[in-house]
């Protein structure tokens, strides 16, 4: 293990995992979108044929709710990614502090600030989606 440790890079492993999770999140969004379009087409076609408007409205609400739940699920995957990426940030911070200079570069700090902003935007989107679903 002690011989292997210099050759195993924790950042590379975590970046691979985050890449896989990103692909999963994208596929969840894609499937949700395709499914929603498919259901909307079917229900709209059915509502055109039949005159029952109340059932079509409740169905479209259900479809919308299902779609929003799919989006929230994808955001949850992204949140899992965020947790891992924060681990990379701390590892990099320690690596930088222990290797050459003890002062972190401004670029690193800027990246971190942007990262925190992205997290806040994601949280805001998630809350708004949940509020919409509750409505």
């Amino acid at each position, binding site marked *: 293990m002690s011989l292997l440790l210099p050759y195993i890079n924790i950042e590379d492993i975590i970046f691979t995992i985050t890449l*896989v999770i990103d692909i*999963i999140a994208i596929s969840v969004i894609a499937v949700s979108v395709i499914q929603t379009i498919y259901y909307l087409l079917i229900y709209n076609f059915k509502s055109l044929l039949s005159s029952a408007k109340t059932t079509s409205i409740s169905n479209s609400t*259900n479809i919308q709710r299902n779609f929003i*739940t799919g989006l929230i699920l994808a955001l949850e995957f992204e949140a899992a990614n965020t947790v891992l990426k*924060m681990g990379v940030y701390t590892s990099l911070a*320690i690596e930088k502090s222990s290797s050459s200079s003890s002062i972190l570069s401004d670029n690193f*700090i800027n990246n971190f600030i942007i990262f925190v902003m992205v997290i806040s935007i994601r949280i805001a989107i998630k809350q708004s989606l949940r509020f919409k679903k509750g409505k």
Partner: protein
Amino acid sequence: MDGIVIVAIAQEGIVGGGGTGTENQSHLISEVTESLLVPYVNYLTFGIDIAAGLIIGLSAIFALIAFFKILIKPIKEQTQSKETIRLNLTRGMLLALDFEIGSDILKTILIPSIRELTLLAVIVGIRIVLSWSLSKEIGRHSTVIEENKQMENTSSSTNQNT
């Protein structure tokens, strides 16, 4: 390897040293402790980070499999099942977050300057807030599930009575 380092430091402490004896001794002790502690903490944090990554990766893969499984269900059931999948993923994330917080606490030992320590404190703060909000969400969801179960039970009992 560590043993060699310790012996070398000890020899240096005995042979060399311009200061007083107590100063040399304290310097020697701190160097020996550091040489022992740094690789040990590095191994531990490495293992914990890998464990957290694996937990999140596995939770994500299980969630994806469950997501594909529910696609054949009717749309109302799908919405409920998606919530359950999300909550399972959240539980995995919560566990991984606890691991990462533990790893961060260990990393504070290695950090020399105040700037990095501030950054780490910010990250730990974000993690604690995330973990608190996730646990709150899980609690909320479990109460909703219990309420739904109770409602189902009462409706089934009223149906039986009628």
